[in-house]
């Protein structure tokens, strides 16, 4: 792999992206074995630096590293680097002094992984930063889509929900366009950035106002979590109205092409962006996404830590 870090989808080119997904297939095969562990990263240390609450992503990275036999060090704190009594630089120098081989970082602050990378020579893997990026989420989603359809180029993926506050959306848009898919965004204008030109200029991203207009030719309907608190700051009037305009229910599921699938990065707000019958339908690949997350994170860890040493 050419990339030496995974802070943003930007760090990958199309070739690297394909390599991650191909490698994840191998990792998936390992995960299907009775003994789900290989010695590949034995003697290597992965530090999970989690500066924001996370259970699912941290567990997923934890399992991924352990299946590769890496030693895992968990470093959790809430808030900013300074609020926990240590400067950002000192946190980085501490990790450096401990001789870790890679740092998986989650932060509520956009840009924190990039800042950390200024002080550390080891590969940085972004496990989600503020509203900025969540690249492994996008990669596991692409892996899920590719497994289902056999390809990514030419797919039409409609992303519906709270785009502006979503690091998943930013990574998803960039990864899908890199893979040659077409992206549609559906959201109330209050939940879209005011200037989308960075995405729409490329010609593969468009905004559609009405969800019903986007259903007929979508291959993937990708729903984003909508936090109920948003309505208190007038992003939308009520969850009831949000659900009516942007919620995925049985009627809308029926309007999708027969081959289309529904995805969600979790955790879901059942009854808001998705109804239980859709979430639990066989066309929703939500548990596949969680499962694929382990293989994709194994692939990322492997390629970033050992990938430079072996011929990929």
């Amino acid at each position, binding site marked *: 792999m050419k990339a030496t870090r995974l802070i943003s989808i930007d760090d990958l080119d199309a070739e690297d992206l394909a390599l991650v997904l191909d490698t994840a297939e191998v990792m998936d095969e390992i995960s299907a074995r009775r003994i789900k562990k290989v010695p590949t990263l034995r003697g290597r240390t992965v530090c999970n630096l989690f500066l924001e609450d996370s259970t699912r992503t941290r567990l997923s990275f934890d399992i991924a590293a352990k299946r590769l036999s890496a030693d895992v060090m968990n470093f959790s704190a809430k808030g900013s680097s300074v609020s926990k009594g240590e400067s950002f630089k000192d946190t980085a120098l501490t990790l450096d002094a401990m001789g870790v081989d890679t740092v998986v970082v989650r932060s509520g*602050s*956009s840009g924190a992984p990039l800042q950390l990378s200024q002080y550390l020579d080891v590969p940085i893997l972004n496990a989600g930063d*503020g509203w900025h990026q969540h690249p492994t989420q996008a990669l596991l989603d692409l892996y899920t889509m590719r497994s289902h359809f056999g390809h990514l180029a030419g797919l039409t993926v409609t992303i519906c929900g709270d785009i502006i506050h979503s690091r998943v959306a930013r990574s998803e848009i960039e990864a899908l366009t890199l893979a040659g898919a077409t992206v549609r965004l559906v959201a109330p204008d209050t939940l879209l950035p005011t200037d989308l030109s960075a995405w729409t200029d490329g010609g593969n991203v468009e905004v559609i106002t009405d969800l019903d207009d986007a259903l007929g030719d979508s291959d993937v309907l990708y729903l984003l979590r909508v936090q109920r608190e948003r309505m208190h700051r007038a992003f939308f009037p009520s969850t009831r109205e949000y659900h009516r305009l942007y919620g995925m229910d049985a009627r809308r599921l029926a309007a999708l092409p027969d081959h289309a699938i529904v995805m969600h990065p979790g955790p879901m707000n059942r009854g808001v962006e998705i109804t239980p019958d859709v979430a639990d339908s066989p066309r929703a690949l939500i548990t596949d996404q969680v499962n694929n997350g382990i293989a994709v994170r194994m692939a990322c860890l492997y390629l970033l830590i050992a990938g430079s040493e072996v011929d990929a």
Partner: protein
Amino acid sequence: MTLMLKGGRVVDPTRGHDDVADVRLDGERIVEVGPDLADQAGDEVVDCAGLWVLPGLVDLHTHLREPGFEDAEDIATGSAAAAAGGYTAVAPMANTLPVCDTAAVAELVERRGRDVGLVDVRPVGAITVGLAGQRLAEMGELYDSHARVDFFSDDGIPVTDTLIMRRALQYAARFDAVVANHSQDMDLTEDAQMNEGRMSAVLGLPGWPHEAEEVMIARDLLLAAGLGARLHVPHVSTAGSVELIRLAKQRGVRVTAEVTPHHLHLDDTVVATYDPVYKVNPPVRTRDDVLALRAALADGTIDAVATDHAPHPHEQKDQEWDHAPCGMLGLETALAVVVTDLVEPGDLPLLDAVAAFTTRPAGVRDMGGHGGPIAPDAPANLVVVDPDARWTVDGRALHSRAHNTPFHGETLTSRPVHTLLRGRFTLRDGVVADPKVPA
């Protein structure tokens, strides 16, 4: 003992003078200006051939951080930075601890400036007590004090209450004082971290819309127009703000405005580094805004370049972007940035650029006789600049206690060689003089 500045290009916006001349000083005053002055016995001659001789620069918007925040800057280090940047007068903002909302604090700051003796310090008074936006500070006492405060601002905190703002303008009118309101609608900038636009969409940082500045400026312009009061708009950052001020000036509103070197130079693409050295209030905007600000400075819509010199200790800036404080150093790079960006490419005549640093800010408020002219009997507040000096900014080599310059690593053209405050060298051959009274 007289001093002769020999053969420099003397640029004096008050007289529209831009030609080679000699300048003779005697003690604190200029005594003679003209081509080829005869040397007199006892003249100390400073060769200024190839150099610019300008009025000492005047900054309307400075943070010296003393009293209260001396880990970032104090009046001695800030004064040294000012002297190195060619300034002979600066106006420290009121957001100190305690706040400069009483004559006692203003006089302390002014006197401490005089003791250091490297730059004249002209304090800005708070509009409201404690910058809290509720009760008016005792403007009359501040005005009558030895610090002669005739310029009021709550600095980075906008006076949000429209009635308080109107009363402040009304009350200040009695002293013909100027009220400068930080133009930021706090509702529109809830959690805001950077300019709202293409870059904020990609970077996932909450956007700070340009309208947040413009609605506040529009409100204040309407209030000032109705009262005939004097309004100053600090650090204008958007093209829309420029249009509002231009229109108001055409209608005769008594408004002045300033722009910072960083808003003239940087656009929001620098935020992609997430380096908090670029975090500032108002935020750096788009390239279109930068170009509109440059045009506004050139056509006089914006009166002055002001630094908003805002030192922060490294440990405060070295945080996640959303936790880091806003602010940048400016005093030592301001003139060079404008020369490099605007004068050198031919977009702004030198005479106009110098006016934006001298006569025009000195016209906004009483800056104690600074800003020119370069003429007999005027106080000898001067800066001699090497226009050809090419230098690479090193944040650690600046005189400020903090190092948070956004220009670190950039190569700029022009640098002050000598600065003279009432005939005394505060900077000589690029070296800042010692403070008169050490801290």
